[in-house]
């Protein structure tokens, strides 16, 4: 049961990934793209967790841990850029 549930989870997340990527491409503002990027990071965390279950290797959770801890830095960086006068509509 877990096997197919994991596969289903991975497929769901893959779909989420595609949708979010679409938002990233569409934009229109930089902030929109960054929001999408943040969600992509979370989806990646999810994929890693599901994959850890699929292959029965908790080691992959460590990657998820690092990603969870640092992914928001990109958002902080972009936000700083915007506040310093970068245009948001490129």
């Amino acid at each position, binding site marked *: 049961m877990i096997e197919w549930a994991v596969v289903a989870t991975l497929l769901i997340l893959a779909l989420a990934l595609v949708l979010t990527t679409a938002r990233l491409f569409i934009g229109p503002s930089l902030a929109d793209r960054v929001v999408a990027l943040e969600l992509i990071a979370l989806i990646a965390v999810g994929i890693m967790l599901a994959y850890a279950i699929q292959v029965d290797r908790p080691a992959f959770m*460590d*990657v998820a841990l*690092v990603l969870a*801890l*640092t992914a928001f*830095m990109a958002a902080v960086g972009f936000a*700083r850029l915007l506040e310093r006068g970068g245009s948001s509509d490129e």
Partner: protein
Amino acid sequence: MKAMDSLILRTAARFLLPLLLLFSLFVLLRGHDEPGGGFIAGLVAAVGFSLYVFAFNAGDTRELMWMDPRVMLGWGLLLATLSGLPAILEGKAFFTALWWPVEVPLIGSVTLSTPLVFDIGVYLVVIGSVMAIVLALAEVEE
């Protein structure tokens, strides 16, 4: 212009920095057995400091870091290089790993090793380098 001047971010940075540093030490020390190691640990720490740069400013971060990143970088390089040399005293090739199990009171048996020293060197280099770059960029901007 000052940094982002966000109360929320500042408070979060104060809270996250020690957490990230501790986590980086953790990643550093167990890297030999689990995913991790000096490089990843160094990057985690550098991300922590970078967050601090974003939330506060370069000057505060420089003060916080206590050591000039370039000096830290130098020490890291030296430490990593020197870690390969003790082996020669034992008549072995450079960079032959040496392992010394040490009994530390209260903590118990701890294994010190030249690969660990090497990894610490890597750790310092990564922090020093990344922060030298980030601080220099941030300072120019400010």
